[in-house]
């Protein structure tokens, strides 16, 4: 039997703000547990929430980046359930009037499997704003709760069920993460819980018009886990259908160690959240003036930036898409260009050398040991023939480990390319003298012989001779 797969994602993104969503506590990751708390985010008796404008602004910004309709009249609601990580036992969220609705996100590029996926538009149902809950840690005899996270502004982005493969889901998450980074809304670091994802997936016989009951999978801590859980679920649900079984709506968890989902609850014990409008907060009215101002602040999307790179810097589409897939990388590239380095050469050196070194040393661009200015200088020194490409690679490695600039390293180590013809002539003569056979072959028109002789010159010059000059002089001297 063949099957169609329907996938929709619910992604939670922590918004980067100075303070929490409804109180004045710092919104910061990594502090000592329960040090960023106050009576409000601890749900003490008598406290009231005050909405954070920055949190609302960033939610609207995310909506605009995803081409959503922005609600000019919106409100917060209470979502009730009892759990120790929830200080008030209700969460301030949004129910029927979210800030953003009906948007879209274009996906393309490669999935996790490295297979190219066709460009596709994924619908965004809604983006709403809520407060994060505290973080529970379970020990053998007891549980600990860290309320530092309680009240951090949290955006929930709900997609339409428009994805059909795990690779598409992966591409959607990548695109969403890019958007959040581009708009400076969140770092989306899944390890820090800044981005969290629940997937909804259902499988049906190919071509069948009716959807089967869906499964929601929770506890997914990485893009890889999401990808794997989707594969697992497709197989599990297909097996149920193959064996004439019946699919029921359920919530499952993901066990990353064994690579399997497990049942958490079925629809029968679904919670009744008893949503009702939050009476402690006034409805939020967004003026059209404010919205117009905000529209001007919407940053370039990754797609727009990619197109601009191709046009403005005349670099290939592939280069542009690699560079713009990470905002920090694209920023780095543009800064180098501002220091005058050649776009195509810069792009090559970033993609081949810098990205490799960064990934090998497990660093991100904000921790890059080479500043864009120094990187641009290196490219300039290559372009003006001060050093050749081979020397440049050793200079680059040196820069990466020592943080020194290229010119300092070249001076210290005397790596400057020899362009003085007299000096090169000495090496050329020695190469011709020592290698009569290749010289003979060269005269007979064998190209590889020339390469060999140039190599000899480079060897004598310890790599510093200008290879073009050497090549011309060998031809001249041996004829």
């Amino acid at each position, binding site marked *: 039997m063949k099957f169609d797969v329907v996938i929709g994602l619910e992604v939670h993104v922590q918004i980067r703000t100075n303070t929490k969503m409804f109180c004045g506590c710092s919104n910061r990751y990594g502090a000592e547990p329960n040090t960023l708390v106050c009576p409000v985010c601890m*749900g*003490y008796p*008598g406290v009231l929430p005050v909405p954070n404008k920055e949190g609302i602004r960033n939610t609207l910004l995310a909506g605009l980046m995803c081409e959503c309709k922005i609600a000019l009249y919106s409100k917060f609601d209470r979502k009730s359930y009892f759990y120790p990580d929830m200080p008030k*036992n*209700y969460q301030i969220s949004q129910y029927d009037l979210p800030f953003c609705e009906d948007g879209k996100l274009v996906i393309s590029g490669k999935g996790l499997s490295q297979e190219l996926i066709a460009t596709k538009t994924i619908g965004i149902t809604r983006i709403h704003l809520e407060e994060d809950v505290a973080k529970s840690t379970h020990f053998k005899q007891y549980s600990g709760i860290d309320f530092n996270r309680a009240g951090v502004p949290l955006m929930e982005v709900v997609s339409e069920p428009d994805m059909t493969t795990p690779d598409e889901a992966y591409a959607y998450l990548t695109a969403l993460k890019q958007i959040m980074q581009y708009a400076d809304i969140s770092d989306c670091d899944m390890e820090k819980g800044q981005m969290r994802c629940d997937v909804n997936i259902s499988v049906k016989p190919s071509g069948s018009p009716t959807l089967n009951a869906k499964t929601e999978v929770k506890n997914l801590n990485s893009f890889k886990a999401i990808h794997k859980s989707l594969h697992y679920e497709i197989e599990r649900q297909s097996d149920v259908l193959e064996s004439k079984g019946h699919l029921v709506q359920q919530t499952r968890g993901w066990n990353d160690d064994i690579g399997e989902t497990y049942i958490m609850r079925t629809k029968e014990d679904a919670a*009744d959240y008893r949503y009702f409008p939050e009476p402690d*907060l*006034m409805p939020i009215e967004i003026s059209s003036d404010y919205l117009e101002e905000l529209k001007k602040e919407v940053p370039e999307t990754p797609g727009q930036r990619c197109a601009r790179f191709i046009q403005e810097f005349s670099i290939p589409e592939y280069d542009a898409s690699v560079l713009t897939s990470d905002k920090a990388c694209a920023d780095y590239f543009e800064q180098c260009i501002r220091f005058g380095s050649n776009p195509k050469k810069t792009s090559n050196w970033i993609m081949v050398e810098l990205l490799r070194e960064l990934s090998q040393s497990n660093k991100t661009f904000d921790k890059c040991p080479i500043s864009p200015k120094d990187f641009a200088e290196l490219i300039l020194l290559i372009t003006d023939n001060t050093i050749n490409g081979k020397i440049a690679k050793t200079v680059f490695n040196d820069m990466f480990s020592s943080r020194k600039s290229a010119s300092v390293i070249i001076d210290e180590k005397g790596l400057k390319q020899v362009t003085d013809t007299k000096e090169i002539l000495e090496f050329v003569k020695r190469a011709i003298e020592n290698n009569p056979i290749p010289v003979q072959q060269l005269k007979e028109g064998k190209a590889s012989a020339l390469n060999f002789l140039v190599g000899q010159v480079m060897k004598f010059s310890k790599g510093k001779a200008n290879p073009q000059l050497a090549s011309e002089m060998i031809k001249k001297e041996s004829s």
Partner: protein
Amino acid sequence: MSAAQKFVNKIDSGTIHEASDALETGQISSLELCQNLIGRHDDIDGKINGFLSLDTSQILEDANASDARRKNGKQLSRYDGIPIAIKDNLSVKGQTCGCASKILEGFISPYNATVINNLQKNGVICFGRTNMDEFAMGSTTEFSAYKKTSNPWDINRVPGGSSGGSAAVVSSGQALAALGSDTGGSIRQPASFCGVVGLKPTYGRVSRYGLVAFASSLDQIGPITRDVKDAAILLELISGRDELDSTSLPNSDFNHHEVGNDFDVSSLRIGIPKEFLEIDGLSSEVNDAFEKSISVFRSRGCDIVDVKLPSIAYAVSSYYIIATAEASSNLSRFDGIRYGNRIDRTSDLLDIYLDTRENGFGEEVKRRILLGTYVLSSGYYDAYYLRAQKIRTLIRDDFNNAFNNCDLILSPVSPVSAYPFGSVSDPLQMYLSDIYTIPVNLVGNCAISVPASFDGDGMPIGIQLIGNSMDEIRLLQAAHWFEFANEMEKNDEV
């Protein structure tokens, strides 16, 4: 007799403005004032049970500090050193804040309510914690988890509720004034039962930050005082826009000097809703008191006009849906996890929740949590909560229309005067008795209860004046005038 002694002798009927004058002129010190009130408390609160606690050493320390400020000419305001009793649902940093509930037994608040900050900025001293119905749910203060407060006019009768403790300590001369909270009449009804003044300000005029929420969209903090002038003074001290309360209104400062004596009462149009006179259970004595009040206004040239509040029949039912819905959510935070009384016989999370809440909450609170949870449940929301909100809008329209034809509305506060303990056991009967006060909370307007008369047993009866939104000046002017005119009338009768 010394001047100080003169004031002390009438301390059980003294007011904030009199005490303030006495402090300013040096007739009395804050220490003497507080010592005398504590003495009065020690003498009689064993019978009244108005206070849950009174931290006398802290009060005397505060009084000494106030006297030192005044001695150095550094008093924070002319009310520096005035003691005010505080209802047990208002947060005072470092003090217990238990809402008369077992679930918050021993809980110490880590912060000040905005109203407390506002009082302390002016040098006002927090004078004890007054008894109340648990979480302000009740009309008699019988639902306190700790003790029953007696009506000072007859200790076998209830003081009203839920701010029964506040009304009783003011009425019995143990405090010059008190703060209460009013969600459906909890300031006005006990004020009426105890023969004192109770003001529910316009929703948003006084910050709710630090008031333990019962029903967020209805709750409002207000003063319980011995006269209208004091209510105006306390309103001035506690009102104003607060950034910590998103529902607080801009330009909500109040100046009590605007409530002057040069008020032309004859220009007032007083609206009488005929629906209010057709209430089942309106006692003839309350009705008489109400009629008499109308005639006081009429005799001074006021226009008495009929107004219509056609949707008022649904006020009580929609109120008990909205109030309990919000309460069920507001009270869900009391789970024993972060503070308060936790019962953990087992290590099972659900058991901890169930045992803590089963043992921590009293009957009436549980009843309302159940009701509120039910009306918010999926499938019932539209039929109950949504419909109640629609009725609320209709009632608001009724009041808006009424205020197009009048300046103030006059009504009884409660259909009956103070009754003996235990005489109302049917919750529904108790809920229905809130008919005159509840609509004001639903629409958010201001209203005041002023002593008007007495029943055959000598129990006080108040009348209610209802003002338009943010129209406290006119409301208090009229109440102030009535207080005076009514006194004159009584003297004439004698």
